[in-house]
């Protein structure tokens, strides 16, 4: 089991009545009414400090991602974040997990090939190359990409980036969305033929297939707990089998909100309001924006409309309170023992190899976040880390940081 710490870099101090006064946390919230640039600078630096603290506490990887025009998590450039983190974690066995630069929003996409190669060089070969499709809010609404072109742009960019990394000779790229007469990447990655590729997703059928077909790690970014995710994850494992791949659990990444305190009671006291803040304010988005027309292909759209589980989960968020989020395990929160048990349950049921934990949630202040990180890596992580090590190697992890599977070690 590999455990990475994810950070969204959210606005931590939205007003109490935010979701009543404003129509959305994404795309439209007015910066000048809601934020202050100096304070935002503090958020970025807290984010760095929290991720670096996680790395020092033993996190196997640290993750940043890309979102635009929002208070939910605003790192428009995850590679700026990753660059600082790569340097600051020099000498630690910690992967720089970029989850990452959005392929359809970057033009020309070799910019991502270049920046990821820079990060791989700076980090000494510790990069995990996330290749997100991007949300409709980010890519279609903020960055103007035509929804129906998003997946096709993504696929072309993916192919171009991999070719730019692996081709020994300069080549011409005559794509539908990108034409380049001479691609000759500088720098090249330390990791050869290329860094491991992770594809984040939220259950779209076509993304499951894409990850399996290309032998990449599929990362289910779930906010609705692992019970709600079970159906999508089972579908993923059946797709993996269908495409003739092995059932290596490291093919699957899973994101889980986790908060730890000394006791269950203390955990509720420490974290309840921050969890509610996250679900009530951080995910305050008109549900139909998640499915802007054309963003999903026809099959995914049909599946989503006939089984509107995610949409229903979104629309019912405001009615739920901490106890509901706890009960449905949207958040795994409690004493170290409680969190260990529930995470073991999650990992076993979903067959997750690459667990990502969100240890800063919503409005959590810096000190509380550091406490959560410390308790998690001291009291929880050691108990779940050995999972899968008897049999499987994480082929989706930088080779220089990989543990050997026990079978191979003894062989």
């Amino acid at each position, binding site marked *: 089991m590999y455990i990475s710490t994810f950070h969204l870099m959210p606005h931590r101090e939205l007003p109490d009545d935010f979701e009543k006064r404003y129509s959305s946390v994404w795309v439209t919230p007015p910066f000048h009414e809601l934020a202050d640039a100096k304070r935002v600078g503090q958020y970025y630096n807290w984010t760095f400090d929290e991720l670096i603290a996680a790395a020092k506490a033993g996190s196997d990887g640290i993750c940043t991602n890309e979102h635009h025009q929002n208070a939910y998590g605003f790192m428009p450039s995850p590679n700026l974040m990753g660059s600082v983190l790569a340097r600051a974690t020099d000498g630690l066995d910690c992967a720089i997990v970029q989850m990452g630069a959005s392929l359809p929003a970057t033009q020309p996409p070799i910019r991502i090939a270049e920046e990821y190669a820079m990060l791989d060089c700076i980090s000494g070969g510790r990069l995990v190359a996330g290749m997100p499709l991007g949300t409709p809010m980010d890519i279609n609404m903020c960055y103007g990409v035509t929804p129906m072109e998003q997946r096709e742009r993504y696929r072309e960019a993916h192919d171009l980036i991999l070719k730019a990394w692996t081709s020994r000779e300069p080549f011409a790229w005559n794509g539908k969305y990108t034409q380049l007469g001479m691609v000759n990447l500088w720098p090249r990655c330390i990791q050869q033929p290329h860094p491991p590729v992770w594809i984040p997703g939220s259950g779209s059928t076509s993304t499951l297939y894409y990850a399996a077909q290309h032998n990449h790690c599929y990362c289910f970014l779930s906010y609705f707990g692992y019970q709600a995710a079970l159906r999508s994850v089972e579908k993923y494992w059946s797709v993996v089998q269908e495409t003739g791949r092995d059932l290596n659990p490291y093919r699957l990444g899973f994101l889980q909100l986790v908060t730890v305190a000394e006791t269950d009671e203390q955990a509720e006291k420490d974290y309840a309001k921050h969890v509610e803040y996250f679900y009530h304010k951080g995910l305050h988005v008109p549900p139909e924006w998640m499915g*802007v027309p054309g963003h999903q292909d026809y099959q995914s759209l049909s599946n989503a409309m006939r089984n509107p589980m995610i949409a229903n989960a979104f629309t019912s968020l405001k009615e739920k309170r901490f106890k509901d989020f706890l009960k449905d395990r949207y958040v795994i929160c409690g004493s170290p023992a409680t969190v260990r048990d529930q995470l073991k349950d999650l990992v076993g049921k979903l067959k997750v190899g690459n667990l990502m934990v969100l240890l800063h949630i919503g409005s959590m202040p810096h000190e509380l976040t550091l406490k959560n990180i410390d308790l998690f890596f001291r009291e929880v992580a050691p108990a779940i880390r050995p999972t899968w090590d008897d049999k499987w190697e994480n082929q989706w992890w930088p080779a220089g940081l990989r543990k050997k599977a026990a079978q191979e070690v003894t062989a």
Partner: protein
Amino acid sequence: MTAPTDHHVTVWQEKITPNIKVAGSGSPVVFLHGAGGLVWDAFLDQLAERHTVYAPEHPGTSVGDPDAISHLDSLWDLVLYYYEIFDALGLKSVPIIGHSFGAMVAAELAASNPERVSKLVLISPIGLWREDIPVVNWMIITPGSDLPKYLLRDPDGPIAKQMFGTPDPEGMIRMIWSMGCTGKFVWPIPDKGLKKRIHRIQAPTLLLWGKQDRLVPPAYAEEFASRIPGSRIELIDEAGHLPTVEHPAQVAASVEGFLA
């Protein structure tokens, strides 16, 4: 009333076989539907009493063929694709009636090759842009609650109830997919250069607009009229963005009068 029949032609290097709804008899007219997809309604029924109405479904929106849209990438492709359909139907020069998105396409067809379009009826067209009265992006409006406010003069009336009253997953899939397939040519702002080409339109042109259109405000009628030589505006009172649905008989009578 004549029920429309489905007619198929194969075009675009034999990659697309659009479904074309055809009804009536008499001189031909083409109807190009709006972003929500083709619905054969009372307006088209009435039109079919004196004309042969050809109503092609936008590529991708025909049942069973959602991926047809993947063969057309740009507005240029779409314009040439329609000329091929006209060729296949034997329509050398034909009146075109378009609604909203379909009206923008109709205007592009008339501007690209004036010889193919004998008369032009633009009902609440998109295609131009004014910063002071931006066209609302219909693709990001909540369908159940907010869309009726932008589409209909009376968002709580019987038409709204009929269109949006009962949740219907299959209907929603059709509408959302249709918006995606049409949105491919206009996202995120429906100004794709028509203003540079619109002066080429030679067909006599009727601009029909709902007086209470909140999606594309009627001020746009002047924008179109001032750019299309000899065009005429007719405003429909008590109508929003869907005048053919809100006042089918009146709109059909106006169109017929213009075509006669």
